[in-house]
């Protein structure tokens, strides 16, 4: 956990530093009122302070941190594979839905997610993915009139 805390703390610190630097280009404070740079810089400084605290607290534990090996075990390869597959499926869905349409992309997404969630019965995968897609389509497209992405061929 200590290693992860140091990494996350460092990311927060660097992002806050970037935020502070970018805000330097915003208009300077006026005589009255609030400049657009004040609030972001305040947030950035606070983030730097607290992320430095998180880093300092955990750097000391780094040497004695024997949990990293256990953590690595916890985040076992099977979950890493599932997580990657899940993220890829989500990303692919977002990228292709406009091209192949909601009615084709969504059952594929649900079926993929069910398989990632360890569903082994193919008839269940088929039924749930098609049925859910149709119910959501009827609800959002026909009742709420949301213009869901359509396949360009139809």
């Amino acid at each position, binding site marked *: *956990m200590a290693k992860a*805390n140091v990494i*996350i*703390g460092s990311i*927060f610190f660097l*992002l*806050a530093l970037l*935020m502070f630097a*970018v*805000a330097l280009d*915003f*208009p300077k404070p*006026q*005589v*009255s*009122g*609030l*400049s*657009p740079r004040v*609030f*972001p810089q305040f*947030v*950035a400084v*606070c*983030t730097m302070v*607290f*992320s430095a*605290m*998180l880093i300092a607290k955990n750097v000391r534990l780094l040497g004695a941190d024997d949990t990293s090996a256990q953590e690595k075990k916890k985040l076992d390869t099977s*979950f890493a594979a*599932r*997580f990657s597959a*899940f*993220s890829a499926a*989500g*990303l692919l*869905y*977002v990228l292709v*839905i406009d091209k192949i349409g909601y009615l084709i992309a*969504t059952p594929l*997404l*649900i079926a993929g*997610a*069910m398989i990632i*969630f*360890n*569903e082994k019965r193919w008839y*269940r995968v088929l039924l*749930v*993915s098609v049925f*859910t897609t149709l119910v*959501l389509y009827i*609800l*959002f497209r026909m*009742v*709420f009139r*949301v*213009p*869901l*992405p359509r396949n360009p061929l139809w």
Partner: protein
Amino acid sequence: MSALIQGLQFVFTPINFLFLFIGTAGGIVVGAIPGLTGSVGIILLLPFLFYLQPAVALIMLAGMFCGAIYGGSISAILISTPGTPSAAATVLDGYPLAQKGEAGKAIGVATIASTFGGIISTLCLIFIAPQLARVALKFGPEEYFALMVFGLTVIASVSGASLVKGILSGLFGLSIAVIGIDPISGYDRFSFGIPNLMTGFPMLPVLIGLFAITQILVELQKIGNPLEIYKQKIKGVLPTRKELKALFKVIIPSSFLGTFIGIIPGTGGAIASFMAYNEARRFSKDKESFGEGNILGIAAPEAANNGTTGGAMVPLLSLGIPGDVVTSVMLGALMLVGLRPGPLMFKQNPEIINALFVGFMTAQFLILALGLLSVRVFPAILRVPSSILFPVILALCFLGSFSLGNSIYDMFVALIFGIIGFFLRKYGFAMAPIILGIILGPLAEQNLGKALIISHGNWGTLFNSPIALFFYAISLASVSYSLMRMKRPHKQH
């Protein structure tokens, strides 16, 4: 009286009542399923709420909120896994009673206690919130800024195990909130010329990502840890008259305790239910039976956690600051459907407030009816496999993100925030402070800007008002209390 009639007429219009019913029943189901909390339920409901009148959306949300808090007790009793954190104390006596073959009675007691806890807290909400709102109507930007500072200190209370991480989560929320056009000066901040970023991150996909998609990923990690299944037959739901008499001696004080705890921002149902359980045990003549299936040990936490529902709505409705995690999400949800909770809502939309009060009360009776009538269905709800439930929720998350702006970019935002949220949560960063930062940050900045414009740039104006000073003082007290609470376990250890 006319306000009550107006509220009754609204809620009991068949279509409005149907939405309240769906909200409450949906809340019970969501609360009962471990892994889905009231916050996730509210977020999953959001895509549907845009197509409803704000008042209907509000009563549906109220039903979802109350139903979810009650629903958490079902899995706590049947499979020893609290559906929501508020039901953790219910496990202590609910599960042993279910193991003795009296799951029906345990759920019956939880239902009755939850209903009465909810009724008492709704009555307190009806009497306290308008009075507090009347005071808050006199607030200027200085007082509002101080109030938002106080609201932001709630971050300390909902931080989880680490205060530093909680504050960093809140600051992450504030950082997200400053992206886009500054509402005061109109200056474009941190968009780097990307048109989608000029309006900032859309709130609905961010909420869906941080709460719902993150939760799906958390559940993905649990594959291989199957939940226990309750196999016994459920019978004998209602307690005897003698038992009821004893129950009410615990239900009434626990309900008031829960309501009081709920009003204090940053507390919530989990604290209230454990406090009520301890008090019930302390005053009991039969202390030894607690933990072995004593019905008073079920009634006390259930009355208290449902008592917090009305209590938590008091600061939300009258001041516009959330009392706990669920009301933080609810505040975001209300803003998305075009409602801005706060004192002005009482002045400008009294009909919505009346509808909410009646809807909140009606939801309690719906909980009673649904809880007692569908007690035999509950084990079936818990048997829905995660391999069906979460992929369906995922599809709903994407569709919900898309539906508000008809934008595929919004789906992408939900996915990215889901992944970020998962990693943050995995390493102990709470989600609620992020939402508080996103919602309260811009309000704090706007009121600070207004106060400085009015005072011609005099920062001292922030400390001139006694009300503002009061809020700064309770902000300090709130943070100090959180610090003390976090240090205590270390001392014990």
